[in-house]
C-alpha cells in the first residue's frame, strides 16, 4: 500500500538525484578551461530543463509505459496522463504513488545526457546540444530504460542493473566516446595545456555527487525498508564503501605513478567507485563493495591513461574512461558478486547460477555498447549534416562562455 515512509524516502531521494546534476556542473565546470566553465554548467542546467519537459510529455511513457513488444512503452502515459499522484502503479512499486516513481526516474533521465556533455565540452554548438539532448533521451535512453527497468526484454530475461550501470553509465560513457570522435578534437588539443581551472569547484562537484548518489542508489530500492534487491540500507552502505575505495585507489595510483596524491584523482576515484557500484548496489554486500570500488579506481585510472594516449579522440573530461569503463566493470561485477555478503537480504533468482548471471550481464554490456554507440552516432551525424555540430573556430578560440552564452564566468574587468 502507498505509505508515507516509503514515499517520503523516494521523494527525498529524487531531490538528492536532482542535485547531482548541478554537482556534475561543478565537477565538469572546474575541470575545463576558464573560458568554458559557463558553457559546461549550461549543459547540465539545460539537461535539467530540457529533459524534465521531454520526460513528462513523452519520455516517461516511452520508457515506462505499459510494455509494447518488450521493446518500448506504449503511449498510455503521454503527458503523464494516467500517472496518478496518489495511487501506486503496482508493476513498479505498490508502496509509492505512481507519479513519485515517474519523478524518481526523471532524475536519472536528466543526468544521463548531462554526463555525456563532458566529452564534447568546449566546442559543441548550443543549438546542436539542445537538439541532441531531446533526440538522445527519446531514441537512445528511453528504449534502453524500458528494456532494463520498464518490463522490456533484458528485464524479463533477468539482467541485473540496480540503479543504472548500463542505462546510465555505460550508456552515457559509450555515447561520450562516440561523440568525442564525431565532433573532433579541441583546437590544438595535445599541443597546449587544457587543465582544470578551478580545483575547489571539482571537489565541490564531487562532494555533491557523492551526497546525491545516496538517493541514486538507495532510492532505487523504491522503498526505505523492504523494496527491491537488498533494500535501501544495503545500497546506501555499499555505495559509500565503493566511493571510498575508489578514491583511495585512484589517489594511491596517482601518488605512485605521478609522484603526487592528486586531489582531482581522489575526486575522480570516488566518482569511479560510485559508477561501478551503481548496478550492484542492491545486490552485493560490503566486502564485495570494497573490491568493486578498488577495481573501479584502478580500471578507470588506467583507462584515462590509455584513452589519453590514443590521440585521435578528445574525450575532454574522460567520460568514457570513468563512466563507460566504470559502468562496464560494475555490470560485470554485479554478476560476479550478486548475492554475496548481503546476509540474505538479496539472493540470485532461483535456478540462476553465478555463471549464468555473469553471462546475462555480459550480454547486457554488449547490447548497451552496441545500442548506445550506434544510435548516438546516427543522431550526431544527422545533426552535423543539418544544423551543424561544432562552433566556429573563432567562437571556440574565444570560449563558449562569451561566444555562446554572453556570460563570462569571471568578467575580465570585474567591478
Amino acid at each position, binding site marked *: 500500500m502507498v505509505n508515507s515512509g516509503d514515499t517520503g524516502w523516494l521523494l527525498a531521494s529524487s531531490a538528492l538525484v536532482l542535485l547531482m546534476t548541478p554537482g556534475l556542473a561543478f565537477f565538469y565546470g572546474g575541470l575545463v578551461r576558464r573560458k568554458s566553465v559557463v558553457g559546461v554548467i549550461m549543459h547540465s542546467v539545460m539537461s535539467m530543463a530540457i529533459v524534465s519537459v521531454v520526460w513528462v510529455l513523452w519520455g516517461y511513457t516511452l520508457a515506462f509505459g505499459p510494455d509494447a513488444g518488450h521493446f518500448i512503452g506504449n503511449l498510455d502515459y503521454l503527458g503523464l496522463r494516467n500517472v496518478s499522484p496518489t495511487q501506486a502503479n503496482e508493476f513498479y512499486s505498490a508502496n509509492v504513488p505512481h507519479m513519485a516513481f515517474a519523478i524518481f526516474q526523471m532524475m536519472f533521465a536528466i543526468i544521463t545526457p548531462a554526463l555525456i556533455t563532458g566529452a564534447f565540452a568546449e566546442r559543441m554548438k548550443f543549438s546542436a546540444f539542445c537538439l541532441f539532448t531531446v533526440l538522445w533521451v527519446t531514441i537512445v535512453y528511453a528504449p534502453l530504460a524500458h528494456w532494463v527497468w520498464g518490463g522490456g526484454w533484458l528485464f524479463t530475461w533477468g539482467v541485473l542493473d540496480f540503479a543504472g550501470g548500463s542505462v546510465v553509465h555505460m550508456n552515457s560513457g559509450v555515447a561520450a566516446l562516440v561523440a568525442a570522435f564525431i565532433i573532433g578534437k579541441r583546437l590544438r588539443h595535445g599541443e*597546449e*595545456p587544457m587543465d582544470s581551472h578551478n580545483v575547489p569547484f571539482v571537489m565541490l562537484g564531487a562532494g555533491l555527487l557523492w551526497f546525491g548518489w545516496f538517493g541514486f542508489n538507495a532510492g532505487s530500492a523504491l522503498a526505505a525498508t523492504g523494496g527491491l534487491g537488498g533494500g535501501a540500507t544495503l545500497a546506501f552502505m555499499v555505495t559509500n564503501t565503493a566511493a571510498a575505495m575508489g578514491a583511495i585507489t585512484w589517489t594511491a595510483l596517482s601518488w605512485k605513478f605521478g609522484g603526487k596524491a592528486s586531489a582531482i584523482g581522489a575526486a575522480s576515484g570516488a566518482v569511479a567507485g560510485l559508477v561501478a557500484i551503481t548496478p550492484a548496489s542492491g545486490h552485493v554486500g560490503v566486502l564485495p563493495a570494497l573490491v568493486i570500488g578498488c577495481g573501479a579506481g584502478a580500471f578507470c585510472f588506467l583507462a584515462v591513461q590509455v584513452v589519453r594516449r590514443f590521440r585521435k579522440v578528445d574525450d575532454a573530461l574522460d567520460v568514457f574512461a570513468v563512466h563507460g569503463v566504470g559502468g562496464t566493470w560494475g555490470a560485470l561485477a554485479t554478476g560476479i558478486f550478486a548475492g554475496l555478503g548481503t546476509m540474505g537480504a538479496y539472493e540470485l533468482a532461483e535456478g540462476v547460477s553465478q555463471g549464468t548471471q555473469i553471462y546475462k550481464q555480459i550480454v547486457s554490456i554488449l547490447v548497451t555498447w552496441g545500442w548506445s554507440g550506434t544510435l548516438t552516432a546516427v543522431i550526431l551525424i544527422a545533426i552535423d549534416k543539418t544544423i551543424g555540430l561544432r562552433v566556429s573556430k573563432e567562437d571556440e578560440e574565444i570560449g563558449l562562455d*562569451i561566444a555562446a552564452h*554572453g*556570460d563570462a564566468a569571471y568578467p*575580465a574587468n570585474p567591478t
Partner: protein
Amino acid sequence: MKKIEAIIRPEKVALVTEALAEAGIVGLNTTQVSGRGVQKGVMHVGRGGMTIKVDMLQKTKVEVVVKDADAEKAIAIIIENARTGEVGDGKIFVSTVTDAIRVRTGERGDKAL
C-alpha cells in the same frame, strides 16, 4: 637591461616559458590580463539578454628582464613559440630597465637577473 613584455595566448605560456628556460632565460613573471587588438573583443549579454557591452579576451603577459645582449634571442623564442598564425597571437613590447636588484642578496645590475 631590457624589459620584454609579451602579451600572448594563455595556452602558449607553458611552451614559451619552457623554451626560454632551455635558452638559459629562467627568471620571468606572468600576469593575467585582458586585451583587445585587431581581435577586437566581443559582445556580452547581461541579465535578460538586453544590456550589451564589449568585453575583452583573456591573455597572459609574460614579463622578462634580460641583459641587452639577450633581448633579440628572447624575442625570437617568444615569437616562435607563441605563434599560431591567427589573429590574437599577441604583441611584444620592449623597454629599458635602468637597474635590477636581487632582494635576497642586494646584488644589482645584470648579476641580479
